[in-house]
């Protein structure tokens, strides 16, 4: 399935809606461990990504992603906005000069996004961060595609893997961001960043297969 700049715009609109829908949920999770602004940050971040895309008139998906990420970084300078922006920027670099992406390209995009976030935040899986939902999701897509499954099936598994990943963060201790001051007390609570990652994966599913999911 081809994926071009117009598709990226459509996806980003859906992602924006998905984050808007989950705003209070993210605020609630974040207030238990941080300053509670995560829902607002994510809404702002994807609104900015959409306007960043609107300002790009070319066909290069890489440049379009970089334009979206720069707008996001500027408008949503809080931690999670910067992390997502870093992810999108790295994803943009990974698909530079391409005008249409294949399914394997989408996987490249996902991996680059994780790499960008991980490099920027200096975190890895198990640190109770957004990576704990995104990494399992991308792994699920990779496995699915490698086994010859459809993208639809692979995305189903990715959403499930991200959901499990969020649940799993309850067993972890925060080492990053404001939440790390809670140390041992962070155990038992879901990581708000991981939940934001799950929202993003759901938005992917919502774009490609609007009838799947809830």
């Amino acid at each position, binding site marked *: 399935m081809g994926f071009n700049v117009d598709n990226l715009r459509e996806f980003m609109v859906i992602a924006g809606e998905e984050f808007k829908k989950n705003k209070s949920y993210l605020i609630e999770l974040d207030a238990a461990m941080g300053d509670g602004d995560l829902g607002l940050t994510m809404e702002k971040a994807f609104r900015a990504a959409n306007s960043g895309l609107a300002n790009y008139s070319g066909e290069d998906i890489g440049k379009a992603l970089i334009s979206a990420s*720069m707008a996001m970084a500027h408008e949503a*300078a809080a*931690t999670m906005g910067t992390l997502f*922006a870093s992810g999108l920027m790295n994803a943009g670099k990974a698909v530079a000069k391409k005008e249409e992406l294949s399914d394997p390209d989408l996987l490249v995009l996902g991996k680059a996004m994780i790499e960008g976030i991980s490099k920027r935040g200096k975190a890895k899986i198990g640190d109770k961060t957004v990576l704990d939902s995104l990494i399992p999701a991308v792994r699920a897509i990779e496995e699915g595609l490698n086994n010859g499954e459809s993208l639809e099936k692979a995305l189903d598994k990715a959403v499930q893997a991200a959901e499990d990943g969020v649940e799993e963060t309850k067993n972890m201790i925060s080492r990053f961001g404001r939440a790390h001051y809670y140390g041992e007390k962070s155990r038992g609570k879901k990581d708000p960043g991981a939940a934001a990652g799950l929202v993003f994966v759901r938005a992917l599913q919502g774009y490609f297969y609007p009838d799947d999911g809830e």
Partner: protein
Amino acid sequence: MKKIINNPENFVDEMIEGLLKAHPDSLKKVGDSYRELVRAEAPIQGKVAIATGGGSGHLPLFLGYVGKGLCDGVAIGDVFASPSSQEMFNVTKAIDGGKGVLFLYGNYGGDVMNFDMASELAEMENIRVRTVVVADDVASAPQGNEDRRRGVAGLIFAYKIAGAAAEKGLDLDSVVQVTERALNNIRTMGVALSPCTIPAAGNPTFAIDEDEMEIGMGIHGEPGIERGKLKSADEITGAIMEKILTDGPFFEGNEVSVLINSLGATPPEELYIVNRKVHKILDSRGIKVYRNYLGEFATSLEMAGMSITLFALDQEFKELLDAPAETPFFIQKDRR
């Protein structure tokens, strides 16, 4: 906390607007935004440029160290919040004089991420950037975890060394090298007696009893290492100096520069009382004081408390420390 402010949302912009009116010959805006300031003469061709930045609420940090012999530009965030990578990037472009740009700032998650991002943006425009993160607060993480320490008043020494080295004509890698070497010799620790109130939040950043103090508390109210009854100036100074002297390379026969910093509400009188004890302790260890700085350098709005910074010197550091510098907040003439 009573404050003389207008709409809290305009706190930072109105502060900078007034500041630019006071110092029109020293600082200028990059564009329309009040959050991107550079030296009046920027960009200076052929000189390594230095960019810094961080949240507001710490004056003279960060913008107070933009000027001759120190930094070239600053990105300014909301109170206690990182500026955006775009703001940092705009400052970077405005100060680059063809010799590359050093990012020099304190070790806080948001600032690190945004400066890293800004350095990628600069890379895409072929501006060479190197980064030195200041992490001098010994109370914020134990030895072995130095990279998790926060950056506090030691930033001033880092600016002084890097700024003088850049002014002298050193190239970017040499400026980085001497600054990193200086930071190995710089240690800070502080004590907080009362909290501050972020204008837009309206509540104190932490609660502490009238008769209590917290040693090692961060400049944003991050937890310290020990909360207890308020002690005498000599006892507080002794406890802090003990930690600093064990942590850093401060040995008999050394010379050190001493910086005593008020967190905002502690008056200079009390800083001198602390300074008296610092000298006694150094004296008893056979360590000489070379330059003594005292006043407000890195504050936390109206927080009461102070920090002590020691910087172990050698000949190169002494020369760089002695070099002239001039900003609206920091003036040092050529001679000692």
